[in-house]
């Protein structure tokens, strides 16, 4: 009965389907066999082609595609026919729904195509239009429960094929879980719907690995079947049948039972079916892929750096600076990344690391007992130094095995904290006191180091220190050109001023709006660095633009100054970097800034905060900077540049880091 229309009108059918979509009592849409025959009298030929083209253009222009229709109507997907054509020809009459954002309704003579209404088309001779009724385009809310049923049905088919091919049946599952028989559910269906989420074992030989969808790893390629259910992939591996333990061995064990009655507490009849572990099979025994690890480790390493990931601004830059310095100190570095990022979720690909570096993704190597195994790796590598850069797994290794680790290497824990606990130091607040007895403590600022010493100094191995920052210095020839450009810009400037604003992504725009509002003659742009999340247009004050990283070098000569109002490690870093462009700096009067630049190198706005006072202070500071003459501005930017050169050059960084790690102490 191909494509037989229901007796409902399209509206009635749609209402029924919508009730089903909402989980109403009618259940899911009817499984009507798909039809792809042509109804020439109404929908065939050139007329229909025109209708199809016009409706298709209407939907395309509104970002509505056939994904929902195909997901919901497996018969159409499998038939491989054009979904919109099917919908217009048959789907409407059959009560199917093309997209939840659409309504289909009869057209009368007054219905004209518009932004929300499609061209008129005919079904069974009657005119209809599609109307946009819902601006939402996110299909997840609609598709989730519907897809789940279809996914489970498909999964059960494939899982049964897997069982058949593997020679595994449901006997174990039913025997091990007597409640399943009482539930009345068929065992495979029970397992997929309930057993997996409840952590039940289907069969000792069916090993299951669950991962977020599309997370492929080399060792998973051998999966016997992959089931996609919801947002996860369920991979099943058939474990080989192990050779049965010889009867003579079991007899020897049984002979000892009279000495120790608990020997067969598991039940002697089950002795041949106990789990069998091969000692040398570390992936199966320990979920530790030693082959994956050893494949990366050739030769020796002078340093191990443990980092959570290498995509975040703080972690990536810190690790890259460290590996650069360690290479210059003659150390090859093994970087253990404890959390492999999902690229799309973390704002970009890995940053390249400087130095002689091998990166190991701990997620791919070790799935359980990660802390102990990490400590054993370091124990085996015996590096001269081990640095943990804001990585909880590494911090825990130091906490749990710090005595042993500190006897084979110099330990240092790097916390992204200015001492303002716990606001900017979640990991510092949690771990710093526990790692301090075994490891050197590095934080972002000297003030932060003072806070650490006040809190945990008596138990600490050594005083906490501010880990220096390494800043790429501009070449002096380039600087001279930039200084000349700066002087020329000041000579030509008009009344209004042009300021760059930077704050950690997503914050600080309310203050910017107030400051910009108070200075209508000035122009403000927001600086977006490489790797920063670009602010949403609507979140920026009116008239404020984004300046991308590629524009900075070209435009800094035209800028009267950069405003860094938000005290943070990232802002301090920005101040140091902008000093090399000879851009005048306007900074909030915060410790994190005072530590890196003197009053003679920047204009400090007082007080710090986000209220009106801060707005006034910043505006006053901008007035002050705007009032300075060319020589005064020249002195300001030159002083900033030379301070950074003295404190943050490659050489200064190497000396500082070497001293902080105690290298050369022995």
């Amino acid at each position, binding site marked *: 009965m191909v494509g037989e229309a229901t007796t409902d009108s399209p509206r009635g059918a749609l209402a029924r389907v919508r009730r089903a979509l909402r989980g109403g009592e009618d259940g899911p849409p009817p499984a009507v066999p798909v039809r792809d025959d042509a109804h020439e009298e109404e929908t065939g030929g050139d007329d229909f082609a025109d209708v199809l083209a016009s409706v298709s253009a209407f939907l395309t222009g509104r970002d509505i595609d056939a994904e929902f229709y195909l997901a919901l109507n497996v018969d159409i997907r499998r038939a491989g026919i054009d979904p919109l054509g099917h919908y217009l020809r048959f789907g409407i009459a059959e009560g199917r729904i093309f997209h939840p954002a659409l309504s289909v309704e009869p057209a009368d003579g007054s219905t004209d195509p518009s932004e929300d209404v499609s061209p008129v088309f005919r079904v069974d001779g009657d005119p209809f239009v599609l109307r946009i009724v819902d601006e939402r385009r996110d299909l997840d809310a609609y598709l989730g429960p519907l897809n789940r049923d279809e996914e489970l049905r498909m999964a059960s088919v494939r899982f049964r094929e897997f069982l058949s091919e593997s020679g595994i049946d449901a006997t174990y599952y039913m025997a091990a879980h007597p409640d399943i028989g009482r539930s009345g559910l068929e065992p495979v269906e029970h397992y997929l719907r309930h057993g997996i989420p409840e952590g039940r074992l289907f069969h000792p030989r069916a090993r299951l690995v669950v991962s977020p969808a599309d997370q492929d790893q080399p060792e998973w390629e051998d999966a016997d079947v992959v089931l996609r259910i919801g947002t996860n992939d369920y991979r099943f591996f058939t474990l080989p049948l192990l050779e049965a333990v010889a009867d003579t061995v079991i007899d020897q064990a049984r002979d*000892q039972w009279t000495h120790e009655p608990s020997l067969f507490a598991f039940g002697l009849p089950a002795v041949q079916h106990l789990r069998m572990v091969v*000692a040398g099979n570390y992936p199966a025994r320990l979920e530790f892929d030693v082959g994956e690890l050893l494949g990366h480790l050739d030769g020796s390493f002078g340093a191990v750096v443990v980092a959570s990931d290498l995509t975040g601004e703080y972690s990536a830059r810190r690790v890259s600076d460290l590996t650069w310095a360690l290479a210059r100190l003659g150390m090859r570095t093994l970087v253990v990344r404890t959390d492999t990022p999902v690229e799309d979720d973390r704002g970009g690909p890995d940053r390249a690391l400087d130095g002689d570096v091998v990166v190991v993704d701990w997620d791919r190597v070790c799935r359980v007992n990660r802390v102990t195994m990490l400590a054993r*790796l370091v124990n085996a590598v015996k590096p001269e130094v081990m640095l943990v850069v804001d990585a909880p797994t590494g911090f825990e290794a130091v906490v749990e095995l710090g005595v042993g680790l500190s006897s084979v290497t110099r330990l240092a824990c790097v916390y992204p904290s200015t001492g303002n606990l716990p606001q900017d130091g979640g990991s510092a607040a949690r771990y710093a006191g526990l790692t301090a007895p075994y490891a050197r403590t590095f934080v972002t600022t000297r003030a932060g180091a003072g806070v650490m010493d006040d809190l945990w100094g008596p138990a600490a191995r050594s005083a906490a220190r501010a880990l220096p920052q390494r800043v790429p210095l501009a070449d002096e020839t380039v600087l001279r050109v930039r200084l000349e450009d700066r002087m020329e810009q000041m000579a030509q400037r008009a009344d209004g001023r042009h300021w760059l604003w930077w704050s950690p992504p997503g914050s600080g725009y309310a203050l910017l709006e107030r400051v910009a509002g108070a200075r209508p003659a000035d122009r403000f742009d927001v600086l977006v660095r490489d790797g920063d999340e670009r602010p949403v247009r609507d979140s920026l004050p009116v008239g404020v633009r984004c300046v991308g990283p590629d524009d900075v070098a070209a435009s800094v000569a035209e800028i009267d100054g950069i405003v860094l109002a938000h005290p943070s490690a990232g802002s301090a870093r920005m101040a140091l970097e902008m000093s090399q462009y000879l851009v005048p700096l306007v900074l909030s009067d915060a410790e994190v800034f005072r530590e890196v630049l003197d009053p003679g190198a920047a204009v400090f706005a007082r007080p710090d905060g986000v209220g009106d006072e801060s707005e006034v202070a910043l505006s006053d500071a901008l007035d002050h900077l705007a009032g300075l003459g060319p020589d005064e501005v020249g002195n300001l930017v030159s002083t900033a540049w030379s301070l950074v050169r003295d404190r943050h050059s490659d050489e200064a960084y190497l000396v500082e880091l070497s001293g902080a790690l105690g290298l050369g102490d022995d």
Partner: protein
Amino acid sequence: MTDVSVVVVFHGERSLAVPALASMADLVDVARSAGLTVEAIAVLDRGDALTRRVVEAAGAWLDVRDEVEFGDLGLARNHAAQRAGGEYLAFLDGDDLWGSDWLAAAYRSATAPGQPPEAIWHPEYLLLFDREDFGRPNLGELPHPGTHSFWLAHQPSTDPGFDRRMLLFENAWSANAFAPRSFHLRYPYRAVDRDRAHGIEDWSWNIETVWAGVPHLVVPGTVHLIRLKGNGSLNARNQAEGLLPYIPDGVGLGG
């Protein structure tokens, strides 16, 4: 010369020493029945009073009962190696049991023609058992899904799939090994260094001997019965104490 000295080390096993001594007696009987001369030794290292009484009462048949005050399993074994007179030495932990063929079969393997003169021998299987499994009844021939007890099959170091660097991450053999006594004198166990949190005497010894080129082999058809304690992990104690194995100079991931 005595063929085999079998040494069981106790410290605070208390009542668990009873089945261990009974199982050890089976070992010795089978070995002697096979024509071997066997010296049975018990070393009580800083033992508590109850364990001492148990060893006295249940170990009257032993050839030697020795008390030491090392407080260190490795040093107690080293003491026994010095004290023993056998050509081969078999160490036993005082809370385990052993298939009764172990000594005789290990001696046969170690002295069989064509075998390396210096090798360390391990049982083919361990049956790791947990008395808590009484609360997890089996389903006929199927164990309860939550059963802790399991089989572990030892792998020889000569196996093509064995990469000695794996040993740096996890021990591959249990402590109850069989080897020439001269070998134990040359490669004594290292004491636990609690100030540096390094130790785990048998694991460290396995690393040292493998890197020294000594093969670790398995004796076919043999089994040791290892008692699981605490959370059921062999390494629970070592992890709880935060210990790491010694890695001798020259040993590392480079190969």
